[in-house]
């Protein structure tokens, strides 16, 4: 019941003495991905303000948790996100423009989950944890676990929030994962808030402790420390791939923005909390570290700034260019074969839409 918080790269940018320093390329890659993730977030918020998006759930402050986990994955591992894993999506190679469609109202999804082994965002709290479990059952049945072949063994990484721990379905996922010893890692970003509910509304013990009740390991890591997050996630995924079953990771962090752009967090929490967590910024500490190690020089900073700029421009133009679905698409995507009655409804609808457009002219 002792859940020490693993921290390797402190808020001051000092790396734990016993930890091997990342290579320059590796350190830069981690930093770059966090910077890019933050930029996606910042641009999306701006697009929302401009009326281009209906809303946006910001991940500000959670970059290290997601990028650290992203760097622990192998290509064949499969990720099940919530709706806030923009940094993880970036690491998986999902075109960030496609992250905007859901919030722009042009789609309920936005990418093919099979292209990057990155499932669609799931908005119903906890529901994805059971899909992750089922997918992990599939991996077991495919024989892709514990073979020792690094090209073959795979695992599932599923994200959930501190609030999600209270949903029955998340707990059923723990039951299944433990009893069947499945290759799945539950990655909880404990950002301490579920909209307006502080974690104390959900529980009186650390997130990581939950796993113990089901008979598997729970570990706590400084969620703002990309080095530590990567390390614990690598260990957990390796253990899963080897056939040792599930792990729960609690990445202790903080949601620095309101729940979404529509939320007003001034109603329920003091700004001082936010300031405290700004001082623990995941990017700043990595930057300090890399600068101190002489890795992040002016040239590198300039290159990164240019990449960021290009990304921002792509997001802005890409967002506006996102195709609006056709009026027939809901009908076409309801079932694999469209039933007659639905075809009639579609026909009725398309005629109606056409008549409206006629009138509008």
């Amino acid at each position, binding site marked *: 019941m002792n859940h020490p918080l693993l921290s390797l790269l402190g808020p001051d940018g000092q790396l734990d003495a016993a930890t091997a320093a990342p290579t320059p390329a590796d350190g830069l890659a981690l930093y770059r991905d966090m910077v890019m993730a933050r930029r996606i977030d910042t641009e999306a918020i701006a697009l929302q303000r401009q009326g281009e998006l209906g809303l946006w759930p910001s991940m500000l402050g959670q970059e290290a948790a997601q990028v650290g986990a992203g760097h622990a994955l192998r290509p064949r591992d499969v990720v099940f996100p919530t709706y806030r894993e923009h940094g993880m999506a970036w690491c998986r190679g999902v075109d960030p423009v496609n992250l905007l469609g859901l919030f722009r109202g042009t789609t309920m999804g936005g990418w093919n989950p099979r292209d990057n082994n990155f499932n669609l965002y799931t908005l119903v*709290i906890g529901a994805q944890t059971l899909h992750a479990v089922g997918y992990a059952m599939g991996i077991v049945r495919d024989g892709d676990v514990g073979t020792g072949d690094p090209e073959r063994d795979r695992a599932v990484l599923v994200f959930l929030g501190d609030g999600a721990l209270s949903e029955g379905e998340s707990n059923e996922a723990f039951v299944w994962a433990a009893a069947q010893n499945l290759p799945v890692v539950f990655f909880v970003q404990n950002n301490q808030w579920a*909209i307006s509910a502080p974690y104390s509304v959900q529980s009186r013990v650390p997130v990581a402790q939950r796993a113990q009740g089901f008979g598997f390991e729970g570990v706590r890591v400084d969620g703002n420390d990309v080095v530590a997050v990567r390390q614990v996630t690598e260990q957990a995924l390796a253990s899963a791939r080897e056939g040792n079953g599930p792990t729960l990771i609690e990445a202790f962090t903080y949601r620095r923005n309101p729940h979404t752009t529509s939320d007003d967090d001034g109603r329920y929490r003091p700004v001082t909390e936010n300031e405290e967590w700004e001082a623990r910024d995941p990017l700043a500490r990595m930057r300090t570290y890399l600068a101190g190690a002489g890795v992040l020089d002016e040239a590198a900073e300039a290159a990164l700034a240019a990449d960021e700029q290009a990304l921002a421009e792509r997001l802005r133009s890409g967002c506006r260019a996102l195709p609006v679905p056709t009026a027939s698409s809901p009908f076409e995507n309801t079932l694999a074969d469209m039933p007659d009655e639905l075809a009639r409804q579609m026909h009725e609808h398309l005629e109606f839409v056409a008549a409206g457009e006629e009138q509008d002219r």
Partner: protein
Amino acid sequence: MSTPAVPTPPAQADEPVAGPVRLPIAHALNRGLRDALAGDDRVMLIGEDIGRLGGVFRVTDGLQKDFGDLRVVDSPLGEAGIVGSAIGLAMAGYRPVCEIQFDGFVFPAMNQIITQLAKYRHRSEGAVSLPVVIRIPVGGGIGAIEHHSESPEAYFAHTAGLRVVSPSNAHEAYHLLRESIASDDPVIFLEPKRSYWLKGDVDTTVAAPAFDRAQVVHPGDDVTIVAYGALVPAALKAAQQYAEEGVGVEVIDLRSLSPIDDATILESVRRTGRLVVAHEASRTAGLGAEVAARVQDEAFYSLEAPVLRVTGYDTPYPASRLEEDWLPGVDRIVDAVDRSLEH
């Protein structure tokens, strides 16, 4: 995603207690909850983010501050828990009013609602009633993302042992809510979310018709429209258009979705001979089917045209850029009325 893209309401004024006041539906509901809490110690509110935040639509704004966190409870994130614990509280003598944050999030509570809440009175052979109200913002039209625009009323209307009501204006919102809380039966209270900021005169001292009755909200002798919630304003708009052309469209606000007050509907249809039923929910096995089935049975010889349905389609609710066309509105209602009149 929880907080939708709707404007934050203006801060609530300190309105007088009686006499008509102009309020948006959200505030009328807030007033209803406040008066219920003040009037009966056993009334309690439970839900996600209803306390300090005042709910994502601010319907419970200020209530925790005034009634304390034992009576206005910010719950853990679990809908089965919200409804299940409300059942237990009702067994202990309380009158809990639950808030489900959005229509699409009621489904984790379905087991508690269908197998427990709806059946307990029957199970106990009438010995124990469960006075639980479940408030749910419903429907589309606010540009929201998936699961935030659902119309789940048919699931509840098909479930024996529940009452289902839905207001269409502020006055009704206040009174239907008060009556729902006062009822000894479980009530699913559906709040048309795109109407939350629709203003109307609320008089807390003048009762509305009983909460299980439909109401004629626009008289007419040529054709009847039955609607509820957010489609009542659309039906009224259609009726006004026809009135200008000298066609009498009678609009009935269903109010009670279960039980259905067919007496009011039949009286009207026997007069008009024509009926259009409108709702946002998918067509198949929706409320429109039930109204049509009853009317064609009970008023067979009065019908001069088939009962027509104007509904959401049998698809998942679409991405919001499509919703304006997808949702039934004035145009589609008018189209159906035209078709009915042409028969």
